């Protein structure tokens, strides 16, 4: 096993940390969301508005509400983590670690037969 793959005991690699944070933050957000939603809404009332053929009890309403919020939160926080990880690195705006912006010159500069009037 190469040195690179060796991990100190008790320490998580970056991917594990990303997944852990994503799931935990999503869980907290879903908990708060569930508390707030069902504090102002009676799950029994959902039965009247429910369109699927089987009846939904209040426990199922609580569980489905939480599950829905959790899935949405996992998608949002997972996508955020992905976007940040795959995005430009720190210092990008100051020009670090990236290609030089492409050089632009007047098309006619080295090509006297090109007429700039053709391109506005």
């Amino acid at each position, binding site marked *: 096993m190469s040195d690179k793959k060796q991990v100190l005991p008790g320490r998580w690699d970056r991917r594990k940390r990303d997944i852990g944070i994503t799931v935990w933050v999503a869980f907290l957000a879903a908990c708060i969301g569930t508390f707030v939603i069902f504090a102002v809404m009676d799950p029994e009332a959902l039965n009247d508005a429910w369109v699927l053929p089987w009846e939904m009890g209040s426990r199922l309403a609580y569980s489905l509400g939480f599950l829905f919020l959790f899935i949405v939160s996992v998608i949002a926080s997972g996508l955020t983590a992905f976007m940040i990880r795959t995005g430009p690195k720190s210092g990008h705006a100051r020009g670090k670690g990236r290609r*030089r912006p492409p050089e632009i010159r007047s098309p006619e500069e080295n090509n006297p037969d090109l007429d700039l009037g053709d391109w506005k």
Partner: protein
Amino acid sequence: MSKQATSGTAGAGESLYRKEPKIYPRQVSGRFARLRVVAVWALLGLFYLLPWLNINGKQSVLFDLPARKFYIFGMTFWPQDFVYLALLMISAGLSLFFFTALAGRLWCGFACPQTVWTEVFVWIERWIEGDRQKQIKLDKSPWNADKILRKSAKQALWILFAAWTGFTFVGFFSPIRELGPAVLNLSLGPWETFWTIFYSFATYGNAGFLREQVCKYMCPYARFQSAMFDKDTLIISYDEERGEPRGGRRKDDNAREKGLGDCINCTLCVQVCPTGIDIRDGLQYECIACAACIDVCDQVMDKMSYPRGLIKYTTEHALKHNQGHVIRPRIMVYGALLLVIISGTLWGMTHRVPLRADLIRDRNALYRELPGDLVENVYTLKITNMDDQAHQYDISVLNNDAVEIDMSKPLSLQAEEVQGVSVRLRIPRSEGQGVQALELLIQAQDDPSISTKIKAKALMPLKFGSQP
């Protein structure tokens, strides 16, 4: 601090890099530019006109959220039609896979609202401020009457266009023919006001200011694209083998004798790029596949009497002279799935029965025993007439002729009406004991094709001691 690049041999560190300049995309004409103009007119035309069109006296596209009904081209969708929304989303996802695998980011270059609205904002900008050179000159010039006039006129037109966009957007959710007078009378409701301002602001910010930054930094699609590409995907590429070494020349020069390839290094491909990249550096995630570089390079090639296609839509395999096929199993599988789902959805939508019924058992009593050896089960029938005309319905039990049906009122529903009707099923005790599975048929009197079957469970008393 401005960091100007001194030259390619500058010292190490940040000083090597110059400040990212503001992008003034040069105007381009050609095949793909024309295609984008067509896409802009078609898509924005649909967006701005559809809410004003009426079909059968109803707005052609209206998402009536408070009534929980969607009106789309004369069809009414109810919450129960959720499955079509799910199918629509699956089709949209599959289309993205199909088109990306086929020809890269077609969506970004021609159909994405960010591209389409930015294009219109750029047209307005060019109309007021002039072409690229004039815009650069105007930005550098000191504030004078002309600059103030041009800049304010541009802002005014942008704001007007954004406000019209916000108004139209809200018009998809609230009848637009009532919304117009409400705006003029300043009697717009709070939610309509909020969403009109919000959507106008989003359009103005995204298309006027953020522009390519949305595609470069904020859009997840660019980051996923590599997962959907393979070596047979059509991508916009620079033919390095043919173009290099690049260099300026006169038209009559013999490039081969001078040791040059076909790229004359005019940098026009960079100047037309809305994200400011150099396609000659290879495929980059910033490329939104607008094909402006293809158009301009083809014009340059024509000018120099070189064959077109130094920058073109091609595949990685083709560039490496390998055998490859654009039509490949992956495309065929995506295409077939897409075809099946879209045709299935269309068939389902056109063959929908505009009637829905649910039978819910009365929770208070299992059954009631009536004189004359009858057992009564009570239900609530929730019936929805999803059609746009009134109907009267008959109800019957299919699998047991002895069952009597007693309803609180006749099943007569107006167009798009929902009713809850109390239904009592009276079954002779001799018909059995325990749970009886019944099948009920509800049918419109004027159109037998409008019918639905529902299942009902009737409970009967158990005769203890009568069994051996």
